[in-house]
């Protein structure tokens, strides 16, 4: 087995293992920290695929932003409520959803035409991504940023009440 394959399986195991921790953990804080393992594993897989920019951005946005915000929210709530907080709700519907999604994903994976190639030295992808964003895909990019802005303003409106008097 080539080294890259071994590394891939190792990373996949880390990712899936921590994902299971997120899903099955009963302590919401442990789930949040397990999420870090998932994010790191995904970032590492990106790097393994030669998409180092994407990998670092994954680290930057998910670990540095989303995970920290999640932890922040959890920590500001009361401690006693946290110990057993990640309860399982609706096992049966969950199983059905998982079954449907899994079947669908396996079908997609089997139908896809996978290109296999030797991993080369990581090439600089940053410039390409930037060009794509501001060239070919400029419209979706701008629409996405407007949607995000709307979400941001919406969050402020929802969470902050107007100061009375």
């Amino acid at each position: 087995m080539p080294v890259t394959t071994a590394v891939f399986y190792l990373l996949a195991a880390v990712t899936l293992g921590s994902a299971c921790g997120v899903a099955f953990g009963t302590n919401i804080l442990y789930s949040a920290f397990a999420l870090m393992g998932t994010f790191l594993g995904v970032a590492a897989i990106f790097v393994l695929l030669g998409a180092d920019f994407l990998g670092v951005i994954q680290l930057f946005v998910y670990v540095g932003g989303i995970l920290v915000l999640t932890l922040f929210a959890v920590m500001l709530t009361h401690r006693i409520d946290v110990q057993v907080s990640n309860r399982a709700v609706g096992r049966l519907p969950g199983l059905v959803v998982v079954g449907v999604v899994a079947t669908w994903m396996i079908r997609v994976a089997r139908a896809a035409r996978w290109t296999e190639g030797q991993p080369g030295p990581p090439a600089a992808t940053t410039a390409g991504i930037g060009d794509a964003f501001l060239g070919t895909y400029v419209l979706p990019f701008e629409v996405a940023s407007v949607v995000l802005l709307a979400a941001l303003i919406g969050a402020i409106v929802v969470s902050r009440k107007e100061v009375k008097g």
Partner: protein
Amino acid sequence: MQELVDSLVADGFVPGGLPLWVAYLGAMLVFGGIVVFVFILPIAGITTWVERRVAGRIQSRIGPNRTGPAGFLQWLADGIKSVLKEDIVPSAADVPLFKLAPYVVMTGFVAAFVVVPFGGPLIIADLNVGILYLTAVTALVVVGILMAGWASNNKWSLLGGIRSAAQIVSYEIPAGLSILPVVMLAGTLSMQGIIGHQGWAPWTWHVFDNPFTFFAFFILFVSALAEGNRTPFDLPEAESELVMGFATEYSGLRNLLFFMAEWGNLYVIGAVVTTLFLGGWQIPLALADHPVPRIVLQFAIFFAKAYFWVFVAVWLRWTLPRIRVDQMMIMCWKYLVPIAFVNFMGTAVWMVLFPAGVPAVRVLLSLTAAGLLVAFARRVVFHVRRALLTREELSFNPLSTARVMSRG
């Protein structure tokens, strides 16, 4: 790194038949190990000694001077002491997270060294997303600090953790916006590429490229201090307010790891500003022809520049009070972020207007900086002279000058 291995392979130092990637991997591991044990740990330790000696002079006292020459081995003694101390885990703490937190912080800090250049070809891995990677792995430190703050099950720790996370996340934005002008100028994210874009002479450095980068440099340094929890932004461990912040409940080795990360981070701050703005390890090519003295010289110049900023950070710490948490946020969002954004846009406009740069502006800015330095030196000359006094002169006693009754 790669070129060094290539030259070693070409010279026959690597056994034939070994695949090239094994040689690369081996070289990276060996160099990484050397960097961790021979550079990072001692540099963090020695910085504590430097900090205490400098603090001593600033506070008109002597500082540690018993262990080794001028107390130089104090950091080792402290380290050994910390390792031997009992590792107390509070019974109400969240034990696994409490034990894990210092290692997460340490990982984030050591991982940053992967892309920190040392001089010439010496760098563990010259990633082509170098500086982005460096800002991304700092996130691990935040997670570790939050973990520590939460797991300690202490309200002061929690407050410290929350302050720290809010602070680091906020100050990442002005820091990132101040890195962008340099990235635009150099056209690359790679640390070596950014250094390669500058020259040895001050007027070729990015900091003097245009007025916007000049300000971006200071914003980056201030934001980096905030991200490293240094005075005047040491709110997360503000002793007089939060006892010791997120590290309150830690003792022994775990406490040491937090502080090693903090002091080691100072060097990372210095190395980053040196790489991005101050010409990195560039030396006049004519100075050394042979690779070995050249690399040594490059290492020395880089280290000197980076450590100067460590010294400035220490200096600031023992000079300035601490700002309040709301003032810290106001400073970030109302001042640094808009200014950094103006710098970013300004640099872009500058690059469009003057694609080749304006040498006159570069020289002018370098002269301004030199002038500022001289003016500053004139202001502090009294204090510097006082810092250089001998022990006898320092321990001047107005009571004994009355020369009436010697106190022995």
